[in-house]
């Protein structure tokens, strides 16, 4: 699971899509999979009665359970329902983009997400950091902020800060409020300062809690850093193949769990995203190619 990444992804997407996206459905989409499932993973106490899943990881990501909330099809389904209600394409696909961002981001841990449910209940996982939701939320926080999870969140913190334009009042007025009907409706009752604060709230929450959890985990509680792939190793973690079938899977998702492949994949995707694909292509073009043997012609007799 990811923590601050889900708070900050919508701002990064907003920066790249501008008026083509509606912020509130995008944000709700980004939170939706965990809103529906995470409370039962950690457990809650209502009127003295403790409600908690027997197998939290299975409930959170697997099937049977609420793992379908982390599938791409779930996003499309809710998007279609939103379209049927509001007849607004932008609202519908903004939700889908937010929910897909969440599902794809959660592939980073050792459990992953059932991306193509109900066509398959296979869990696609990169396995970069340990899934430890079953240990309770404080140990989970300590583990997440001691492994590569906090690095992943840190990428979004930096990316979010680099997208500072989307946080300005002028941008909110000219772009966010124009594209999203929610702000027009809310603007009838609330001042612009309140609307801007609400718009910035998830960014504030993401950056501030990322900082606070890091301090808590390593200054107050002294959890040990372990930045190895799949770490930290000191926490009991759950793997995708423990939940669903297919112990040895040859699909690209599982193969990329190997650190080297995952690392090269991230570097290649980063290079392409930053527009430096030319240099990678040039490098590949310069690489020695195997010569083809000339075809032998059959002699006619």
């Amino acid at each position, binding site marked *: 699971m990811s923590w601050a990444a889900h708070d900050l992804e919508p701002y990064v997407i907003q920066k790249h899509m501008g008026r083509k996206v509606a912020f509130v459905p995008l944000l709700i989409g980004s*939170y939706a999979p965990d809103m529906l499932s995470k409370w039962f993973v950690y457990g809650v106490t209502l009127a003295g009665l403790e409600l908690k899943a027997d197998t939290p990881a299975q409930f959170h990501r697997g099937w049977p359970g609420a793992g379908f909330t982390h599938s791409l099809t779930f996003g499309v389904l809710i998007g279609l329902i939103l379209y049927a209600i509001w007849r607004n394409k932008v609202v519908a696909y903004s939700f889908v983009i937010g929910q897909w961002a969440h599902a794809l981001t959660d592939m980073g841990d050792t459990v992953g997400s059932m991306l193509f449910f109900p066509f398959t209940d296979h869990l696609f996982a990169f396995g970069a950091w340990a899934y430890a939701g079953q240990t309770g939320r404080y140990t989970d926080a300590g583990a997440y902020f001691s492994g590569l999870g906090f690095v992943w969140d840190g990428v979004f913190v930096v990316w979010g800060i680099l997208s500072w334009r*989307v946080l300005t*009042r*002028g941008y909110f007025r000219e*772009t966010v409020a124009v594209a999203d009907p929610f702000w027009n409706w809310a603007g009838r009752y609330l001042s612009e300062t309140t609307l801007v604060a609400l718009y*910035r709230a998830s960014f*504030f*929450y993401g*950056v*501030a809690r990322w900082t606070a959890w890091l301090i808590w985990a390593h200054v107050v509680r002294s959890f040990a850093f372990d930045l190895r792939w799949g770490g930290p190793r000191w926490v009991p973690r759950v793997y995708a193949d423990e939940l669903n079938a297919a112990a040895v899977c040859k699909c690209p998702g599982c193969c990329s769990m190997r650190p080297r492949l995952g690392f090269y994949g991230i570097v290649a995707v980063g290079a392409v995203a930053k527009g430096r694909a030319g240099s990678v292509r040039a490098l590949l073009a310069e690489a020695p190619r195997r010569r083809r043997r000339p075809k032998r012609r059959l002699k006619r007799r």
Partner: protein
Amino acid sequence: MRGDGSPPTLRDALAAGWRELALYLAAGVVYVAIGVAFPEFLFSWVVAAGYLLLWVVVLPLLLRRVFRP
């Protein structure tokens, strides 16, 4: 100003809204301090949003009323 409504440079943005930024930063520092002392505070988005509204909307409004000449 650019087509999307944002200022052309970061310097312009800071010049126009440094007071607002300072308010948000102060809110952030206090939020982190409370969160480190009481981690339960960090779990809820609703608590964070309510806290931010208190800092950047309600508090300036109260201060303006108190110190209005």
